[in-house]
């Protein structure tokens, strides 16, 4: 199972933990895995992207134009930024949430209309923030999205739960609740 997954969001949103869990599940399945992250300045509220690839053998850690099977987007503008990286049959899983960047906050630019700009692309808008809140875990947005993605991959669910447990520490129960909610969302 070769897959290319892009995780896009705003620095501080938890994209890195989500990518670690996906990578952990793929690794346990005996696959080659590469995950390329961004650290440093961009983490301060800037646009961040993580490239995650797994399969029999992975060379380049990066994903190029029209190569992604999934775009896991934590914010709508960041989803738009990477839509063209999806394969024609690829799917964007998008947290239905807007975080205004500075040019929008200061009125220099307007926030784009997601549905208009995403025409012709397969996408799911997921109210991950609301779902996470309803599970009393407002920081669990990444887990909701992860659950939704997990449903669309073929790894055993148990492997996901183990990996989340391993990496969530004292938040493990709250994170699993959000993961389950994402897993069953829209099903």
């Amino acid at each position, binding site marked *: 199972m070769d897959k290319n997954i892009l995780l896009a969001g*705003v*620095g*501080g949103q938890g994209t890195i933990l989500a990518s*670690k869990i996906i*990578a*952990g599940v793929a*690794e346990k399945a005996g696959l*080659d*895995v*590469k*995950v*390329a*992250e*961004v*650290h*440093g*300045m*961009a*983490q*301060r*509220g*800037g*646009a961040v992207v993580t490239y995650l690839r797994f399969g029999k053998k*992975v*060379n*380049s*850690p*990066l994903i*190029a*134009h029209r*190569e992604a099977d999934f775009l896991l987007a934590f914010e709508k*503008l*960041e989803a*738009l*930024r990477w839509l*063209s990286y999806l394969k024609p049959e690829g799917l964007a899983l998008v947290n239905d949430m807007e*975080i*205004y*960047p*500075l*040019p*929008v*906050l*200061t*009125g*220099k*630019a*307007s*926030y*784009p209309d997601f549905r208009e700009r995403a025409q012709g692309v397969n996408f799911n808008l997921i109210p991950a923030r609301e779902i996470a*809140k309803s599970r009393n875990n*407002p920081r669990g947005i990444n887990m909701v999205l992860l659950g939704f993605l997990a449903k669309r991959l073929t790894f055993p669910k148990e492997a996901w739960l183990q990996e989340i447990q391993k990496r969530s520490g004292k938040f493990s129960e709250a994170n699993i609740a959000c993961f389950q909610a994402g897993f069953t969302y829209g099903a």
Partner: protein
Amino acid sequence: MAKLMTGNEAIARGAFEAGVKIGVGYPGTPSTEILENFARYPGVYAQWSPNEKVALEVGIGASLAGARTLVTMKHVGVNVAADTLLTLSYTGVNAGLVLVSADDPGLHSSQNEQDNRYYGKLAKIPVLEPSDSEEARKFVKLAYELSEEFDTPVILRTTTRIAHTHTLVIEEEPREVSLKPYVKNPQKYVMVPGNARLRHQVVEERRQKLLEYAEITPLNRIEEGTGDVGFITSGISYQYVKEAFPGSPVLKLGLTWPLPEKLILKFAEKVKTIIVVEELEPYIEEHVRALGLKVVGKEIIPRTGELNHYIVQRAVLKYLGEEIADSLENLDLPQRPPVMCPGCPHRPVFYILSELKLTVTGDIGCYTLGVMPPLGAIDTTVCMGAGIGMALGMEKANPDFSGKTVAVIGDSTFLHSGITPLIDMVYNGGKGTILILDNRTTAMTGHQPHPATGKTLMGEPAPQVDFEALARALGVKRVTTVDPFDLQQLRAVITEEVAAGEVSVVVVRRECALLPNQTREPLTVISEKCTGCQRCLKLGCPAIAIKDKKASIDPLLCNGCGVCAQVCKFSAIIKGGDSLG
């Protein structure tokens, strides 16, 4: 069992397996996590030094005393350590010494994208370039063997996509390496001209031996393939070549100084066209060309920014005459540049500097973000410690600057390289104002301790540098301390000190908003009182937006610093109110 590790984690692992006992460096993206990970292994000692030059010197001492030593820094850090490095090449080592240079093509978090492979050529010391984490682990171990066999420091050069990419690693058992005895040897270690002349000859002999080694080392290999086009490549670029042209012949170079001339000539015989794929400078290409070979390189492969397999594939196919579709469409989306966090203690400083319309010579750290609109307060940023000397130079060239210029520098950066230019300002009669933005940590690289935090990398308590006392000891008579969250006082102090007509140091002290216990009750806008004047937007705080022509604060993002409430002229912003959404 295979384990996912970043290149940085793998380097730490490799050093541990090689029996390294001492790790030393200065934080800098993308190198920082090497020492943080190394410090967690049993039986090792690791420390942050105030800057890279000191780090390398501590490393030399450790090597002479007989311990295998790891020294880590980012690419521009090697410039700081360069004076030490170039003569270390002459003295050689006792126990193995490996210097990790983490380069940053694409400038993810740097002020330039210099190619540090040239340091190998300049200093005549071996350069190893791993292509993934497993190679990083293995190459570090081999680097210690080389260092001791050839009596030389060795550079392990990574780039961001090696340092911060997780790939699979097979761990091995650590090796116990006992301390090598120290033998006094002034001819080798005291570089007075008479000794250094002799050591230069030793360096040349070493270069010859390394050249022979380069031809036979498993670090370099020819991967057979089909077709007339062959690639010469190293580091992460190797992965891009394999992805784009999986079946083509490749000469993979793991040792990029010195380069293996015979091996390159042998590879050239196998193919009709040689394409060199490397990020940044035509370092390998120049060498291949000098061998008299016809080679394709930077005329098709970009010399700026980082590469990926897509860029490589398109460039090569286009060169080979294939039709290439147009590249990415212009997306025309609002940019999302990094910003200071909500509650960042730097924000009010730049708000005031912008309001007072001062010339601001800046420095390297989170506060460099003070250049971004709407704050737009910084005039210059060059490198660590540059702002203070530049402020002095400006007033020497034009005295008008002395009444309207401030240098801003962070706490860790001041300790790194701000003290000597402050001495210069005092000594040479400068009148500048220096703001030490003391947020009690090395924030940008992920909160490393430094000599003023009272903690070490090993988690031990430590004495704290007292900035105010230090400034006074250097001869600064006007030293003030101010809390940046008290906007009125901050404005008053900066105004007074800039006008003072002599050197002054203002320590602006408040913990980084990301340190523990720095979150307070969020603020709320009283809609009826808000006139929509947008003054609060001038702070550039990500928690404040305009909704229906009125200011609105996102309680999930707000850190409760209260600076916006002080900026508002209509008392429309108050503590508390609407709690967590």
